[in-house]
């Protein structure tokens, strides 16, 4: 029987109101409530469900990051995983860590643990990358079932129903494979206190990326060591929306630009070089 590797990520809790640092270098993370990425919860739940159906033997939860990442692994263990692996990444390496580095780590671990399935969430709610699963599959040269809303194991193949733009797509892929969990895959269980107590007895192995032969640096083009090719530059708060206003139906209240425009012909707007905000357009000119 087989082993499933589940990747989980520690992110700022979805219910927290994000604040930008005063120097606009990023988002405030100190003292802010963190929890497991919702899509990762769904991934863990799916793996545990497969184990409960006796289709797989063991579920291993993996997380990359500083010591606090072990809290996320503990939650995964409380949800039913058998053991955890904490890949320790701290400091500058952690700040520049992205899907590429994580997928390298997951690929190395999948090979080492001889996993037949790697399940991750489709994307993280903090960076919305939607890349880790796909990159892991590419590095392992395994088939991938992304945006999975239904997973069925059929012998040595997996039937995946994927949620795509046009609707639902059903594919059958060989194992070993990588799956990414979408919202409708399942309903993750809440880790209650008795389960958390039981999880304290489960083991979490600790290792460094170097032990897996993974280089955490993201290289510039040309393979040279020019440093990070991906680096956060600026974080700015979203400007608050202006309130809309009620207008009468009279045409004279509209901005001259709209009144003058024959909407079938854009040339009538050529006279107007100013950019108008929507509120300007609906507000009567001259107050």
């Amino acid at each position, binding site marked *: 029987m087989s082993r499933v590797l589940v990747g989980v990520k520690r992110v700022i809790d*979805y*219910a927290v109101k994000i604040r930008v640092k005063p120097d606009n270098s990023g988002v405030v993370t100190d003292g802010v409530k963190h929890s497991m990425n*919702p*899509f990762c919860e769904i991934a863990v739940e799916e793996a545990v469900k497969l184990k409960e159906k006796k289709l797989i033997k063991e579920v291993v939860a993996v997380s990359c990051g500083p010591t606090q990442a072990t809290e996320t692994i503990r939650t995964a263990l409380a949800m039913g995983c058998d053991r955890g692996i904490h890949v320790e990444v701290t400091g500058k390496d952690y700040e520049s860590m992205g899907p590429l580095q994580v997928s390298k780590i997951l690929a190395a671990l999948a090979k080492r643990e001889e996993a037949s399935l790697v399940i991750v969430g489709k994307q993280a*709610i903090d960076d919305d990358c939607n890349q880790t699963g796909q990159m892991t599959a590419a590095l392992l040269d395994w088939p991938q079932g992304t945006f999975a809303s239904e997973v069925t194991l059929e012998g040595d193949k997996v039937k995946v129903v994927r949620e795509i733009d046009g609707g639902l797509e059903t594919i059958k892929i060989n194992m070993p494979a990588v799956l990414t969990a979408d*919202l409708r895959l399942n*309903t*993750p*269980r*809440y880790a*209650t*206190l*008795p389960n*958390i107590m039981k999880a304290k007895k489960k083991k979490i192995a600790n290792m460094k990326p170097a032990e897996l032969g993974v280089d955490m640096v993201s290289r510039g083009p040309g393979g040279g060591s020019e440093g990070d090719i991906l680096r956060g530059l600026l974080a700015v708060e979203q400007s608050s929306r202006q309130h809309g206003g009620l207008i009468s139906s009279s045409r004279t209240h509209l901005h001259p630009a709209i009144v003058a425009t024959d909407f079938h012909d854009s040339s009538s707007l050529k006279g107007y070089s100013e950019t108008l905000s929507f509120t300007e357009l609906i507000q009567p000119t001259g107050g």
Partner: protein
Amino acid sequence: MSNPLRSEVLKLYRNLLYLGREYPKGADYFRERLKFAFTKNKDVTDPCEIRKLVAQGDCVIKELGNLYYLREYTAMKKLYHKQELFALLNIGRSTD
């Protein structure tokens, strides 16, 4: 209170306390009401009654789990499947 039931009640209390930390109206709000609910029944001695109340507590745990799940699901749905959510609720732009 008879011994096995005492530990059950304490387990229930601790469980609820743990779950209440994420209560939307605030952990303190929840803790106050939890304490009140338990102290209100502190003089109950009939084991049948106690078991019934413990079962009630288990229902509350299930409800809380559902509440937290629904909250998270709705937030994720709004973030990533907004059009679908609005179509279900029959609101939003019909021109998309």
